[in-house]
C-alpha cells in the first residue's frame, strides 16, 4: 500500500489569552496508521484535536485532510466532508435526548436512511462492541464503560476512514480498557481505519500505536515508532513513560531547594 498522508497539520498555532498552547505544530498521519499523541494534562492535546476538527479556529496554520486544506473551506463544505471522520469523545458525549440506537445511527438517519434499516445497522454495530439489547435504552441508563463503547459504535457506524479518539481509556477499569483497545485494534486491522489517538496510558501506546508523538511546550517534542518507545533516552519522554512527578517537566512547585529528583 502506498504511504499517503491522510491528515497533515502545517504550522498550527493557537494561544489562549496570550499563552501559546500550540506553537507551529507540523504533524503527518499516514493512511492506515494509528498515531498516538501523548503529553501532560494541559499540554494542548484536546486543543490540537479540536483544531483538526474545526471546533476551534487556529490562530495560524492549516489542516489538510486527504490533501485538501480544510481551514480554507466554508463551514458548510467542511460539514459535508466530516463524514470521513468519526470521533470518540472523552466523556462519550452521547445525545441525552435520543435512545442509544438513534445515537449510534445518527449520521445514517441524517442522511435519510429508512428507520428500520438504520436501526438494524445500529444494532449490528452495538453487537460488535459487545452491547446487544440496549438499543432502546437512554444514555443516562448506561455505565461509563458502556457509554464509551456506544460512543465508539456511533463514531464507526457510518464507516469513516479516520477515527479520532480523545482519551479512550480514561475512567475505565483494566479489563474494560483492554476491551476498548481490542476494538480499536480490530477497527485498525480489519477496516484499515486511520486513527489519531490522545492517550495518557502507556499500555495503549505499547499495544496500539504505530507511531507516538509527544506534545510538550506547544511543540511536538518527540516522534517515535512504537518499538523505540522503551529505548528513547530523551529525559522528558522518559519522565512521561516512567510516570515520575520529578524530572525535567515541573508539575509541582518545589517547596525545598535541592529536594529529591
Amino acid at each position, binding site marked *: 500500500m502506498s504511504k499517503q498522508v491522510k491528515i497533515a497539520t502545517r504550522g498550527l498555532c493557537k494561544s489562549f489569552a496570550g499563552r501559546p498552547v500550540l506553537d507551529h505544530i507540523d504533524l503527518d498521519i499516514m493512511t492506515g496508521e494509528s498515531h498516538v499523541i501523548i503529553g501532560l494534562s494541559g499540554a494542548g492535546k484536546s486543543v490540537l484535536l*479540536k483544531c483538526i476538527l474545526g*471546533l476551534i479556529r487556529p490562530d495560524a496554520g492549516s489542516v489538510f485532510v486527504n490533501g485538501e486544506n480544510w481551514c480554507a473551506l466554508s463551514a458548510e463544505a467542511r*460539514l459535508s466532508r466530516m463524514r470521513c471522520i468519526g470521533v470518540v*469523545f472523552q466523556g462519550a*458525549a452521547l445525545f*441525552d435526548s435520543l435512545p442509544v440506537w438513534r445515537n449510534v445511527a445518527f*449520521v445514517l438517519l441524517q442522511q435519510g436512511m429508512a428507520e428500520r434499516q438504520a436501526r438494524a445497522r445500529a444494532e449490528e454495530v452495538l453487537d460488535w462492541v459487545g452491547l446487544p439489547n440496549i438499543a432502546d435504552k437512554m444514555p443516562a441508563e448506561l455505565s461509563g464503560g458502556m457509554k464509551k463503547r456506544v460512543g465508539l459504535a456511533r463514531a464507526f457506524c457510518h464507516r469513516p476512514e479516520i477515527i479520532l479518539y480523545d482519551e479512550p481509556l480514561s475512567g475505565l477499569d483494566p479489563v474494560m480498557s483492554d476491551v476498548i483497545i481490542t476494538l480499536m485494534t480490530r477497527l485498525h486491522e480489519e477496516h484499515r481505519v486511520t486513527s489519531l489517538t490522545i492517550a495518557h496510558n502507556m499500555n495503549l501506546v505499547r499495544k496500539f500505536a504505530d507511531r507516538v508523538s509527544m506534545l510538550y511546550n506547544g511543540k511536538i517534542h518527540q516522534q517515535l515508532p512504537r518499538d523505540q518507545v522503551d529505548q528513547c533516552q530523551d529525559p522528558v519522554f522518559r519522565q512521561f513513560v516512567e510516570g515520575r512527578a520529578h524530572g525535567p517537566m515541573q508539575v509541582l512547585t518545589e517547596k525545598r531547594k535541592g529536594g529529591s529528583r
Partner: protein
Amino acid sequence: MRGATPIQSLLLRAGLYPMLFGQMIRRLLRPPFYLRETLLQCEEVGVQSLPVVLLTAIFTGMVLALQSYIAFHRFAAESMTATVVSMSILRELGPVLVGLMVAGRIGAAFAAELGTMRVTEQIDALWTLSTDPIRYLVVPRFLAALLMLPLLVVLADAVGIAGGYLVSIYMLDQNPTTYWNNTFLFLKQIDFYSGLLKALVFGGIISLVGCAEGFYCEGGAVGVGEATTRAVVLSAMSILVGDYLLTAWIFQ
C-alpha cells in the same frame, strides 16, 4: 472570553445575540430543515406551556374584572368593566404575561439544555457527525417559539376574557348579554393584532436569548446555572422593555 475585563466580556456577550440571529437567518434561507426537531420543540413550547399559560390567563381575567369593577363602581360606570377587561387582555396582559411565563419555562429550558450539551461536548459531537448544530438545535427552537407564542396568546386571550366574564356574571351580578356585548363593542382589529405582533416578537426574544446563552455557555455546571439565570432575567426584562417600545410604536 476568559481573562477579559467585565466591560469587554459584557460587550462580547451582547454581540452574541445579533451573531446567532444572523447565523440563524442565513440557515433559514436554505435547506436542510429539521422538521422532526421543529415539531418536537413546538410540542415542548406550545403544548407543554398550556397549563401554566391558561391558569395565568384565567386568574388574570378574573382579578382584572374584580379590580376594574371596584374602580368603575366608584363613579357608577360598571358597564365599562367588560371593555376594560377585554381591551387590556388583548392589547397588553395576554402577550406580556404569556411572554413572561414562557420566558420562565422555555427560556430556562433552552439555556439549560443547550448549555449542558455544550459543556458535555454534545454540540461538538453534532458537528463531528456532520450536522450543523445551529441548524439542528437553534433554528427549530426559534421557529417553534415564533409559531407557538401567538397561538398561546390567542388561547390566553380567550380564557382571560372568559375568566372576567365568569367573575362579572356570577360574583358581581352583571347582565350577561350587556357584558358580552360590551366586551366586543369598542374593540378594534388592531387591539387583537397588536397583541399577536407582540407575541411574535416576544417568542423571538425568548428563544434567541435562551439559545444564545446556552449555545455559547462555558464553565461547566456553574456556567450552565449562570446561563439559565441570565436567560430568564434578560428575556423577562427585554419583554417588558420591548413591550413598551412596541406599544409606543403601535400607538403612533
